[in-house]
């Protein structure tokens, strides 16, 4: 039963993820296109409101970058995270029929959902980056491999949070309502629409503790300024791994009882 469950169940994870991907857009006409439409609409709104109305600018160290590109680089990772957490949270309750009748490691349902969210939005992210590059934005395509590398611990982080929320959600239906509000707050507490340097000194230290802030800033650096890894990345990765393992521990503690509550 123990050993390497992930290795033993790799085909199940593959099948679940494939299913998740192919069915996200089943029944819609334009299918995959929806992956872009929603974030692009969001980006357009932010770009208009903040660059045209609030006249927000880009710090001087980002050369050859418009506000739109500045936001886009941080917005897609945020969407990966928030969507991954929200869908991952619903993965257990949403597969109640399966869990009640089939013995399977239920954490795979959360993994596959989060992975599918990341994969879909990653594809959108790459396309948007290439499009921005084509329009003359100073995006360092050499930073793309580093960005992908940074997204791995970021994925672990989202999965860890998703596991905790999915487990709690099974017992308490209130969780999903709270999570929506918290995610909205975290969005504005993360340097996405603004750079961390714009945050008043008194708040900056606190904000920097937000793991999402770290990844948001680092992804911008790698893609817009200097394509290279930093020492802090290893620390962040270790932190994300810890969050993931803690989430998995809690999930496994509660998962034997899911069947009783679904």
């Amino acid at each position, binding site marked *: 039963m123990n050993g390497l469950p992930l290795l*033993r169940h790799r085909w199940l994870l593959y099948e679940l993820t494939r299913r998740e991907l192919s069915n996200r857009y089943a029944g819609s006409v334009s299918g995959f296109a929806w992956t872009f439409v929603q974030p692009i609409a969001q980006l357009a709104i932010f770009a208009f409101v903040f660059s045209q109305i609030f006249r927000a600018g880009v710090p001087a160290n980002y050369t050859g970058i418009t506000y739109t590109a500045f936001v886009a680089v941080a917005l897609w990772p945020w969407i990966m995270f928030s969507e991954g957490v929200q869908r991952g949270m619903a993965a257990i309750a949403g597969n109640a029929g399966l869990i009640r009748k*089939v013995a399977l490691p239920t954490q795979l349902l959360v993994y596959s959902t989060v992975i599918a969210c990341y994969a879909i939005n990653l594809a959108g992210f790459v396309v948007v980056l290439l499009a921005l590059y084509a329009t003359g934005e100073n995006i360092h395509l050499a930073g793309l491999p580093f960005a992908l590398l940074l997204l791995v611990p970021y994925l672990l982080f989202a999965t860890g949070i998703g596991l905790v929320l999915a487990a709690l959600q099974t017992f308490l239906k209130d969780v999903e309502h709270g999570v929506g509000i918290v995610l909205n707050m975290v969005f504005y507490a993360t340097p996405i629409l603004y750079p961390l340097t714009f945050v008043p000194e008194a708040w900056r230290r606190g904000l920097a503790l937000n793991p999402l802030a770290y990844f948001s800033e680092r992804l911008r650096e790698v893609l817009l300024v200097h394509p290279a890894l930093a020492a802090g990345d290893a620390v962040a990765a270790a932190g994300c791994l810890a969050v993931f393992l803690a989430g998995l521990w809690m999930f496994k*503690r509660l998962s034997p009882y899911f069947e*009783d509550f679904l």
Partner: protein
Amino acid sequence: MSQPLVSLAGITKDYPKVATGGERLRTLFSLMLRSAELPHFRALENIDLEVHRGESVALVGENGAGKSTLLKIIAGVARPTAGTVAVRGRVSALLELGSGFHPDYTGRENIYLSSAVMGLSHRETRSKVASIIEFADIGAHIDEPIKHYSSGMGVRLGFAVATSLAPDLLITDEVLAVGDESFQKKCIQWLERYLDGGGTLLLCSHSMFHVQTLCSKALWIHHGRARLFGESFDVTREYLTYHEEKRREERRAESIPAPASGGNMPRIVSTWIERADGERAETFAQGDELVLHGIAYEPDDRSPVLLFGVVRADGTAVYGSPSNERGFIPTPIGERRFSFAIRFAAIALLPGKYTMRVHALDPEGLRLFDTVETEFVVTGQTRDFGLVRLEHQWIAGRPGAP
């Protein structure tokens, strides 16, 4: 002695009571802190069971007795509150209807998913898909979402998938009850082949016929406890007897008022079935003596003609005969009433459910006035088929016609 494929020891399962938010919150904290006391109800209590390779075991019991919960625990879907479960080998489980398919995905996608649960790769599954679809035999529906399937179609697909993997242990929960006649036959043939080939089966069924034909052993679960474990024929007999007694008590509780005597047509006032020793009974072993007793009413106080017939549960007539054929005259017992009895020295009927019909005719035996039915069950351990056992012998043959 080989190691058992399944061994359960002291299995107890409590389900938490989670009707209110407060109870849910309390339960969540207790689970996190591993403390014991929770509001719960007990679904299973102290069940022991061993199933060895090649055995076929049935779980019988009333609705809500805990059969499905026990199967879930063996299949690994539910975790027991106390006790140990050890299951070896590859297990295929068909729990309840629909058997764990995702309603939004097509039948084909669900085949891949179910196979992946068993550890098969996409490519390995691809080689099996054709035979699974052929066995399920649901035509073009295979590419439609499962939610549009009838329950029978869902079970067909579920059975086809579960059996395609040649499991060491097959667990099925009341699935045979859903498919149509021809699919049931196909399933039973498959199961018989599977058992002949050394497969192990754990079945839960309300059909004592299926239990007797497929399983060598049976466990009767009553209100969450093991009530009887043994040869399937013994257990099913006890179980059926229990039900008959329960039904009789219910009937007694209803206390049907005895029909008033009177009227101007011949009637059957009452009938009942007895064993050779005079005990009333509804279940008989094949070859037992069965005596049908009855009281008839005739308005002119002349002996009526009676007619009995034996009908199988599905309505097939087996045998019938009128009383005047043998010159029998019912015995007058006063008040225009007549008693009669029909003795069957050794019932040759094959195991199953039958109805004994008794009709009252006028004294001339020309017009039929009344019909009274009494049900009875014949049990037995036999591979014969048909309606009745015809007395026969297998004897040495000759090389050719004389």
